[in-house]
């Protein structure tokens, strides 16, 4: 059903309304601050990046014509000629340098501040050519530049009440927390694109309401529908589903530096107690792939296929808890709506515990403030990690000893060394073997329990064509607006 759409030839014209799942007054047109899917959708429509990842997860050039290096440390970027901003200004390397350098400025509040810091220096060669000097070698720079935050702005942009980019749409209306409207950029540098004359983007946070709005024809696309709605949607004509198996996951984190995670055996016991199959079937309704407690997804070419997921084994868990001296002690697990499906996962664990006589106390806490108050802080809690394009980003963000989001406070010198080594290496085979071993280390040593990879399902009107799944996330990696068209 979902694949039939591709056969048609694209057609220009028409307008659609699409709905994401969340928006608030914190909505922004500043790519550095973008934090929600709605922000990404807007950014993708109004701006361009130097590179982007295609459906297969490989790097493609967008505003850059080429990005080259010999040592993974110094990178030469050549820009595509003849690109203009919405206000008519020509794209030059000044714009690119401004756009990248601002992430390093703390007062900007960039989400990728930590990542941007490795770009030690920018050198303008001429209007089309520039150099980026990294503080240490990193072979993944072109992929890093494909992150949504590294959208290219016009030099000196300070005002974000509207967007002046090079993207397929011009910003017509932007009301934070309400809606935004983009109209077709007639001078768009990509041939024939976009097909739509305009598109409106809103957010409906209530999932049944989002689905109903699609069914009633008020919107053409409803992002991220609940697995439970799929059975109903499949029976309805005029609706198609787009499934993306991405690297998104909700994980149960046991801090290794605190009670009870510091008792040997507890974490491993938890890994055996979590019933991945039930989570996959009942909680995720089969829209998930069983995972093996490490963050590199099966889509990634560095995924270690040899590493199998642990089987559900309550008896083994019981003996491990006994070994840790914790059997029978009530353990609090913090869960929240903020980390998708975590409450349901927690009850699955709780139920399994109850069956072997191990009590867990599920504490549901508000989504408001969850990330600042509970995540990374509570001894046993849930987290939710969005897909990242490379193992390097994942590992340095989540597992390196100095990682800002080291969810289980995992510390290993060996791991840190391997990370730097792989990062600087341009030798594919060597990197693969290092990453394989690192995945094994995480699965066995870290306190992060990753039960399943969560698939994203978007529902859309069958009139809407051209939407293809993308590993960076739903809605075609948030860039659907410039690629879709309306069938007559």
């Amino acid at each position: 059903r979902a694949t039939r759409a591709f056969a048609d030839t694209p057609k220009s014209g028409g307008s659609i309304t699409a709905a994401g799942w969340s928006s608030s007054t914190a909505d922004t047109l500043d790519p550095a601050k973008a934090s929600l899917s709605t922000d990404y959708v807007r950014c993708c429509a109004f701006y361009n990046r130097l590179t982007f990842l295609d459906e297969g997860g490989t790097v493609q050039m967008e505003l850059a014509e080429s990005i080259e290096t010999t040592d993974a440390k110094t990178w030469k970027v050549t820009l595509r000629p003849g690109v203009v901003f919405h206000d008519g200004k020509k794209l030059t390397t000044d714009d690119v340098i401004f756009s990248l350098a601002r992430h390093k400025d703390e007062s900007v509040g960039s989400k990728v501040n930590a990542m941007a810091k490795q770009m030690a220096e920018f050198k303008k060669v001429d209007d089309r050519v520039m150099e980026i000097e990294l503080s240490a070698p990193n072979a993944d720079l072109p992929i890093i530049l494909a992150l949504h935050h590294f959208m290219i702005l016009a030099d000196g942009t300070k005002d974000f009440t509207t967007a002046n980019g090079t993207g397929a749409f011009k910003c017509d209306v932007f009301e934070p927390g309400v809606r935004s409207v983009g109209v077709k950029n007639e001078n768009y540098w990509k041939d024939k694109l976009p097909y739509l004359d305009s598109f409106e983007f809103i957010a409906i946070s209530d999932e049944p309401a989002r689905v109903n709005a699609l069914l009633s024809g008020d919107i053409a696309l409803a992002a991220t529908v609940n697995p439970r709605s799929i059975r109903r949607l499949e029976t309805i004509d005029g609706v198609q589903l787009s499934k993306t198996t991405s690297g998104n996951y909700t994980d149960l984190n046991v801090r290794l530096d605190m009670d009870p995670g510091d008792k040997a055996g507890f974490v491993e016991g938890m890994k055996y107690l979590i019933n991945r199959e039930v989570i996959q079937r009942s909680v995720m309704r089969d829209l998930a792939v069983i995972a093996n407690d490490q963050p590199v997804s099966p889509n990634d070419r560095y995924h270690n296929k040899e590493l199998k997921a642990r089987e559900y084994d309550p008896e083994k868990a019981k003996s491990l808890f006994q070994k840790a001296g914790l059997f029978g002690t009530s353990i609090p697990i913090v869960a929240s709506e903020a980390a998708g499906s975590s409450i349901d996962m927690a009850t699955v664990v709780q139920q399994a515990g109850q069956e072997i006589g191990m009590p867990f106390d599920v504490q549901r806490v508000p989504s408001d403030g969850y990330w600042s108050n509970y995540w990374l802080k509570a001894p046993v809690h849930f987290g939710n990690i969005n897909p990242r394009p490379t193992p390097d980003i994942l590992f340095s963000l989540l597992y390196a000893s100095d990682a800002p989001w080291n969810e289980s406070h995992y510390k290993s010198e060996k791991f840190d060394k391997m990370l730097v080594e792989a990062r600087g290496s341009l030798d594919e085979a060597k990197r693969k073997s290092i990453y394989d071993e690192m995945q094994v280390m995480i699965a066995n040593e870290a306190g992060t329990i990753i039960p399943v990879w969560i698939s994203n399902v978007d529902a859309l009107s069958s009139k809407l064509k051209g939407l293809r799944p993308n590993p960076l996330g739903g809605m075609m990696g948030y860039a659907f607006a410039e690629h879709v068209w309306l069938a007559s």
Partner: protein
Amino acid sequence: MNAVIARLVLKRLGIMLLSLLIVAFAVFFATELLPGDVAQILLGQAATPEAVAGLRTAMHLDEPAFLRFLHWLFGLMSGDLGRSYANDREVADLISGRLANSLELAFVTTLFSVPIALTLGITSAMFRGSFYDRMVSVFTVTVISIPEFMVATLAVIIFAVYLRWLPALSVASEVHGIGELLRIYAMPVITLAFVVSAQMIRMTRAAVIDTLNTAYVEMALLKGASRRRIVLRHALPNALGPIVNAMALSLSYLLGGVIIVETIFNYPGVAKLMVDAVSTRDLPLIQSCAMIFCVSYLLLILIADVVAIMANPRLRNQ
């Protein structure tokens, strides 16, 4: 008579200012109690200590909170609501459109639910103890015991998805003509009317029954007046005070309490704005929203009091 009302209104406005100040302080301290601040919330998962500190300095958040509150308060006195922390826009700009939307919705709901509540309340009082009366009372309790989100979802499924009569979303941005306006407001209004009328119906009924038991109603009957006349001309004007008071309390819900309706119908009103503001710890926005709710609540109560006084010549001519 006007002098009495004017004096009352003035006095109430004075008290209102005082209440507003209390609420402003209370809300300020409440916000302070909430863990996390706007810098941390804006950075979300990416909030490393350095990043937070940097952003905080940039946003002048390292000034003492109380000082910022005073800034905001003095700004308010000169008519400046300040700038939102979360997106650096004028709070007045953020609020004005949404407040208009909320008021519109509240107005249409009032227009719709008040006559219904009055009619049901009055008629059930007229036929007190009858089967009809019992039905109305069971109906009101049933209606309020169905969760609001269920009423809304059910309405959408029936009227938008199956029948396709009405749109599932109430986006009030582009409205052409009265017909479309009705279509757009129909479902949120039905949902809200369900919620607010029950209390009004019950209070109207009680108040009318109270007055129907009086000697002057009996006297009207003995003058040969019809049931209709008795209820409308004699009982109702005297029951107006308590009825209007109950209505004011019910209607005050229509601004701050309609978060579910705003969410489900994607209606851009102030309730959701306030929730957003709280979850981003956007102090100027929180304060402004709180002021709006407080003002509207106090205004409604004031209107109720004025109506009660107008309806009662004894108070009116004091």
